[in-house]
């Protein structure tokens, strides 16, 4: 018996390795996706190691040096300095830290409840459970996410925590809807019926039978969503509702720097480019993932 189990386990491991290899092959067929992935890894590493690799880590905290304010890009300050003398390059890297953190937390908090609710609603299709869940989802989707995020963040004190909380609160409906549509079409398929007939518990059916089939669109959407969340966060801080100074945040940096255009263009343009690059990278990787999961017809 144990022999069988071990053989099964090894076989499934081998199979998983094979499908990963096949997935990577499909992904790497598109050079843009690979570039996106490389960029993401670089940004991730830079953000993670920020205090150790940036030239002026102290500038990411409360720091002023008016003697060196408003300097254009140079050897000492790659991206120049902003109006109170802080090195823009350092702050951009630290800004990435917060952007990525925002994305991870929001998706971490928001995806799981959305997926669970979507599974429940899809499985109990046609009952009051589905109606209740989906109507609540509708309410949250009735306005654009930015508007609600704005409203909620505005009403609470603007800081990183509240911002994350507000956005995460709005994110689950999208996953709920996505999973719901997949789950409700799965519901009537044979393997679900079989599981029911053989007495499987509901949680088993939901998480071991239906969930794996939803993983592909969920993962793709999560990747693309990272870009959107970062964009949302940047927008919020641009308005002034995000992290508070002196914490570096890309959106705030763009807003501050915009006032000094066209003169000290570097304090706006570089953070702006940084935002575009990270969102672009997530989009490219997300597109690549979509290719990986798509069933190709010969």
């Amino acid at each position, binding site marked *: 018996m144990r022999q069988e189990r071990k053989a099964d386990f090894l076989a499934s491991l081998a199979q998983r390795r094979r499908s990963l290899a096949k997935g990577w092959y499909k992904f790497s067929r598109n050079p843009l996706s690979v570039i996106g992935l490389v960029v993401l890894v670089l940004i991730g590493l830079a953000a993670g190691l920020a205090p150790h690799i940036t030239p002026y880590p102290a500038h990411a905290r409360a720091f002023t040096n008016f003697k060196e304010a408003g300097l254009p890009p140079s050897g000492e300050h790659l991206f120049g300095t902003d109006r109170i003398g802080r090195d823009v390059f350092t702050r951009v890297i630290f800004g990435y830290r917060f952007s990525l953190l925002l994305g991870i937390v929001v998706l971490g908090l928001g995806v799981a409840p959305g997926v669970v609710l979507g599974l429940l609603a899809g499985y109990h299709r046609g009952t009051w459970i589905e109606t209740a869940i989906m109507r609540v989802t509708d309410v949250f989707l009735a306005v654009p996410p930015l508007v609600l995020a704005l409203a909620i963040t505005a009403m609470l004190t603007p800081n990183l925590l509240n911002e994350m909380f507000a956005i995460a609160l709005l994110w689950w409906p999208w996953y709920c809807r996505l999973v719901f549509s997949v789950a409700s079409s799965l519901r009537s398929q044979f393997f679900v019926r079989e599981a029911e007939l053989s007495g499987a518990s509901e949680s088993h059916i939901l998480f071991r039978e239906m969930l794996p089939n939803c993983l592909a669109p969920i993962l793709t959407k999560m990747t693309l969503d990272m870009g959107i969340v970062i964009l949302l966060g*940047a927008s919020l801080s641009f308005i002034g509702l995000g992290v508070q100074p002196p914490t570096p945040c890309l959106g705030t940096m763009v807003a501050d720097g915009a006032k000094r255009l066209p003169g000290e263009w570097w304090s706006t343009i570089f953070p702006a480019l940084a935002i575009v690059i990270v969102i672009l990278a997530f989009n490219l990787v997300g597109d690549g993932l979509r290719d990986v999961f798509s069933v190709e017809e010969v």
Partner: protein
Amino acid sequence: MAKYIGLRLAQSVFVLFGLSIIIFFIARVVPGDPARAALGFLATREQVEKMRVEMHLDKSFPEQYYYWLRNVLHGDLGTSVYTKQPVTADLRRYIPATLELILFATLISLVLGQVTGILAGYFRNSWFDGVSRLVSYLGIATPSFVIAILLIFIFSQIFRLAPSVGRIPIMMTAPPTVTGFMVLDGLIAGRPDVAWVALNHLILPAFSLAMIHIAQEGRITRTSIVENLDKDYITMHKVHGLRTSRIVFKYLLRPSIIPTVTVMGLDFAFLMSNAFMVELVFMWPGFARYAVTTMLNKDLNAMVAVVVVIGVTFALVNLLVDILIMWLDPTIRIQRRGGSA
């Protein structure tokens, strides 16, 4: 068909109710005293107490909601703490400006986005296709405020081609408000100079708004056209000798724009969100800027009204888009009825 619309409207009303309750709840739960905020910190304690009673703040939450709802149904959305005006007056002042901006942006995105999408699809893998693909990747990845700032940087500050602030120059007097659309009002008042200037002021902000739509919707149209070009029925149209213009502009186009229109409904959410950013950057005196200001100032009455208005607009637009899709794609209409037209 009418039944479907009726059903959708009923659904929307229900959803909007829920939305208003949620927003109202959050607004009331938030710390801070709306009565004091309304009167300012110089007011005496008695004045604040009187105001509290007036604002029904001493009553329970459901009662407060009831009063609010009753007022709304009578057209009274409360008074803005910030502008000291009735919210409805504020809305009437600011909505047309945003509407003008949004309409112009939609026009630009339709013309530029769809035409490039169609051409890119028809001439797939040409240099045009490649360039448009690059542009659309960038367009999707760039937040609207970044685009706005870049546009201002390049066209307003470096090249001095277009203005970047407001709807008309400060020195110019506005024409009497007829439609609320500056360009039209200028023409109606017989002042083409105003209309022309207003148009200039519209260009950059509208383009900032339109960019993401050009990028995304154009791309979808392109993909759709490429897919449909290979379809058997297009080959059959050729076999039967239909002339090329008819094949491309009628038989290829209609099935191809269906996915795009579907996305337009969802994208409208982005349009509204981006309007917030763009209006801030360009100091456009519109509804979105009003909304942001009220939120930053915790102006509760205005905020709740704003969210509800946005919700209503969104619901209407989605309904319109769905109706449009049903007209474009009869298969949806038929499947919905279960087989008969």
